[in-house]
């Protein structure tokens, strides 16, 4: 199965800019479906980016983050060809992990 995480990390030699797009419903638990029944909450709680064994960015999310969430940040350092590890865990305990090469 294809990963739920799409990451693009680009280094300009000084800093690495990271953009990530994740496929996830991000149901807040406040929305009703067509039958008028509440769709139970189902959202990513923690999204972590690791470089060189250390977290460079950690997102704590609630149900207020949009469906198929997008996030962008940048960190100092990071060499072209190096690995950036991305992983998430949602409120139901599901997880996904991927590793992207810095470009």
């Amino acid at each position, binding site marked *: 199965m294809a990963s739920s995480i799409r990451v693009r990390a680009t280094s300009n030699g000084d*800093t690495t800019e990271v953009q990530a797009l994740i496929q996830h419903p*991000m149901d*807040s638990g*406040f*929305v*009703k479906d067509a039958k008028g029944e509440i769709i139970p909450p189902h959202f990513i*709680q*923690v999204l972590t980016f690791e470089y060189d064994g*250390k*977290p*460079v*960015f*950690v*997102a*704590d*999310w*609630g*149900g*207020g*983050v*949009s*469906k198929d*969430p*997008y*996030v*962008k*940040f*940048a*960190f*100092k*350092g990071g060499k072209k060809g190096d690995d950036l590890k991305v992983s998430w865990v949602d409120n139901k305990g599901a997880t996904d992990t991927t590793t992207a090469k810095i470009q």
Partner: protein
Amino acid sequence: MNITTSEFLANRRLVLKGAGVAALIGLGVIPFDVPQALAAANDKYPEEAFKQKNEADAIKALYGKTAEPSDKVKMDAPEIAENGAVVPISATTTLSDVTSIAFLVSENPISLIASYKIPAGTLPSVANRIKMAKTSNVTVIVEAGGRLYSASKEIKVTVGGCGG
């Protein structure tokens, strides 16, 4: 020189943390693991903060203190969001020693949207997309040097994103 209470407390916390690290090393834990162990303790998902309905309670649950408005916190957001389900918002700051950035929407059923931890070496700038139930004030909180700074802006929503 004036040492304010919060600075004093922050220093005290650092001292306590240092003492903890020293104790762990003393117990024979490999020093390498210590920063990660500390990080893990700080990295706990703020469950309580994400349950608070109103903005002030969420900030209190997340940080245990209040924020002061600062023009050094910049928020880039639309004036009018046509679709409340996807509102692109980014925040950046010229403050130094930033440790976290959080986004809150006061009129949402749960005010806290996201809280980002910014380790040393990561730039204090983040972009994301959030849901808004209706027209509301959106607040960005920046934690820098142990203090909280904020910026707010009203965003008009024409179609809500929380099933309203």
